[in-house]
């Protein structure tokens, strides 16, 4: 199995719960955003997949996106600008 390194950004209360705004992960490919969420993020974030949006390399992606070496993923809580 291939190993890939990704960076994950956290914002707002996701950052609070992760105690980090950015973390590096080393993962075994193939792995989707949803699979990675279940495996590594669901616990500390404390809310189910449906509570979040995800982006990779600054584009919105669905949970079935296949993560790639070097991806910058973000965990995006419901937005509240204005």
């Amino acid at each position: 199995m291939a190993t890939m390194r990704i960076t994950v950004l956290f914002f707002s209360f996701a950052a609070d719960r992760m105690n980090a705004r950015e973390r590096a992960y080393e993962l075994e490919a193939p792995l989707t955003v949803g699979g990675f969420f279940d495996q590594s993020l669901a616990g500390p974030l404390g809310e189910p997949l449906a509570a979040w949006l995800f982006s990779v390399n600054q584009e919105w992606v669905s949970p079935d996106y296949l993560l790639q070496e070097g991806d910058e993923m973000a965990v995006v809580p419901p937005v509240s600008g204005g």
Partner: protein
Amino acid sequence: MDLYQITDQPIDTVEILQGQGEPGAGAQVLFLGTVRNEFEGRASRGLYYDVYPQMAEAQLRKIGEELKREFGVLQVALVHRIGDLPVGAVSVAVCVTGGHRDETFAAARAGIDRVKQTVPIWKKEHWDDGTSAWHDDAGSST
């Protein structure tokens, strides 16, 4: 000139207004959102705005291009301030220049709605009692 900006500095509304001018323009609508002294009846001292900067600026630009295409307006400026803002500070500015008032009002209104709904920015309320809480945080205890 179109303008799409995330900034940690005070929003310069004069510069935004003066940057917009088109010979075919007959209407300009500027919307300013300001930090309120309460939210849902609870007293507040101000807000902290978090942002995903690159995605947020890209999304502002996308909204501006949508507004020009959908409403036929001529120029759009969308600026959002981030960081700690006191009550009364301008957090967001939407400025639309168009031929007539109908499409210009409609585009400005759609502009602020889409900024609030789709730009990756998050606000944390600094309550007057000294506690703080992110908006829309279902897991928050405050």
